[in-house]
């Protein structure tokens, strides 16, 4: 396992990847991607038990499903830097004939992706299905998923949340990125979510918090704690507070950068706040 300092370098490099990817095509979703960088880096480099290479069935390894597919930049960067595909391919993000579609898909055969996401609210159901398949196969590995907080406004989530608790899907760790922002503004203004943790708890989940999802040590500790709570009859929910746009001062404390790319000047500024560590693609 890499040490925390190496992972912190990776965090900064992934932020650079995200910014450069969305800048090049003047589109994509940097805000949520930057906010979840620590989570992805921790998950793929410290938490999940992964096999070498990629196969769709993913037997005998942990699985991850990204439900809020619009934060594809962070997903692609972390997958590439974990060795799923060449880092240089990040340069094709959102371009014609690329495997790195605007939102993740299996359709182009990109290693690391097991289901398409983008149309929101569908990922938890898929993660539950994969977790049930693991149980049927006698595979004691775990299934992780990530969901935007605004995404919880989609009703399918609550069908899935009810199902997972009612059927004791206790090999599932669903994390909610509680950044409090969505396209049209603050979640509590667009459609109030209230206390997300209370809602999951009321449905029968084991709920825990990561108070600062942009603190790598906290994220690693929280995910390890979540792993220790699996296998006890309840699905595990992590409500993870993050700052959208984290790591770039002018992208924080606003929903403005949810789905907007920086211009040349803004990119230079943002990159100067995240100096190159492991090498740009």
């Amino acid at each position, binding site marked *: 396992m890499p040490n925390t300092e190496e992972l912190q370098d990776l965090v900064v490099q992934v932020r650079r990847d995200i910014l450069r990817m969305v800048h090049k095509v003047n589109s994509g979703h940097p805000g949520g991607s930057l906010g979840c960088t620590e989570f992805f880096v921790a998950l793929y480099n410290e938490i999940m038990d992964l096999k070498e290479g990629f196969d769709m069935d993913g037997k005998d390894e942990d699985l991850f499903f990204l439900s809020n597919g619009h934060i594809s930049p962070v997903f692609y960067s972390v997958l590439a830097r974990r060795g799923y595909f060449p880092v240089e391919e990040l340069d094709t993000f959102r371009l014609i004939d690329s495997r790195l579609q605007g939102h993740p898909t299996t359709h182009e055969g990109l290693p690391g992706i097991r289901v398409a996401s983008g149309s929101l609210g569908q990922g938890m*159901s898929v993660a539950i299905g994969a977790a049930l*398949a693991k149980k*049927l196969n006698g595979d004691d590995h775990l299934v992780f998923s990530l969901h935007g907080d605004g995404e919880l406004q989609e009703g399918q989530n609550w069908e899935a949340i009810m199902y997972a608790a009612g059927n004791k899907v206790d090999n599932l760790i669903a994390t909610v990125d509680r950044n409090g922002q969505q396209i049209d503004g603050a979640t509590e203004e667009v459609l109030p979510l209230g206390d997300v943790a209370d809602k999951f708890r009321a449905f029968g989940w084991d709920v825990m918090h990561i108070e600062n999802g942009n603190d790598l040590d906290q994220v690693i500790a929280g995910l390890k704690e979540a792993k220790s709570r699996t296998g006890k009859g309840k699905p595990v929910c992590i409500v993870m507070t993050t700052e959208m746009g984290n790591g770039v001062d002018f992208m924080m404390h606003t929903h403005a950068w949810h789905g907007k790319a920086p211009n040349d000047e803004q990119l230079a500024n943002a990159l100067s706040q995240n100096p190159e560590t492991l090498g740009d693609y």
Partner: protein
Amino acid sequence: MTKYTDQGKQDTRSGYGAGMTELGRTNPNVVALCADLVGSLKIETFIAENPERFFQVGIAEANMMGIAAGLTIGGKIPFASSFANFATGRVYDQIRQSIAYSDKNVKICASHAGLTLGEDGATHQILEDIGLMKMLPGMTVINPCDFNQTKAATIAIAEHHGPVYLRFGRPKVANFTPVDQKFEIGKAVMLNEGTDVTIIATGHLVWEALLAAESLENQGISAEVINIHTIKPLDEKAILDSVKKTGCVVTAEEHNYLGGLGESVARTLTMHHPVPQEFVATYDTFGESGTPEQLMEKYGLNNKAIEKAVLRVLKRI
């Protein structure tokens, strides 16, 4: 004319149930999901014999489609079942993104398709599902005609890798195809060779087409009858070979004329061999309450309607 015998009326949904029973015994990767309609889908035996391979999701069809997609990751072959309306229109985007676009090996199995569930009325009937499903890239669409064929189709789609929409119904209808038939996805079945007109039918309308052909024969009209159980991929060769001989065609289906089998046939003809065509189908309408027989009569979906359509199309040659 080739003679077909009704071996005793049965519902096609029970053919699905019988197919699932057999799959439960022969294919350990097959799993079943249902959204609070176990009795209607006739899968009690599968559940009793394989309780660990059945997932009751409750009245939550969107979640069911997503769970089915997830179960394929790990090698399972999920059969997700509900009424045709709730298994297609209600969950179109879940099927589109999590199943079709994600290339997932999910079998969507839908009972109570068309008008013939009867008294429940239009909220529970659907006449748009073939169109919805055939529009999805990579989706196979199958509408078998009787109990035996539905059972055979259910077993066959487990061996086919990729998403499938299997459509069947509630009423007891003639069971006339061979009990030991080999079901080939995408392969039309020639039921009666004829020379004057081609009748291309699917689902419950296939038996009605045979009845119509018998009546037409008594009037001196030789009707070729083709059972198209697979609407996508469509057996274009079988269709074209027939119409090159007869020069006209009637399509018959328990579905809207927009988006159904008839339109697929029309596209094939337009591209390769244009001939006059008449559509036995519903005409851009919702259904309503009534007995299945009353509805098929009122909406023009029985052997009499097919016969009339043949007489119309013959005048257009």
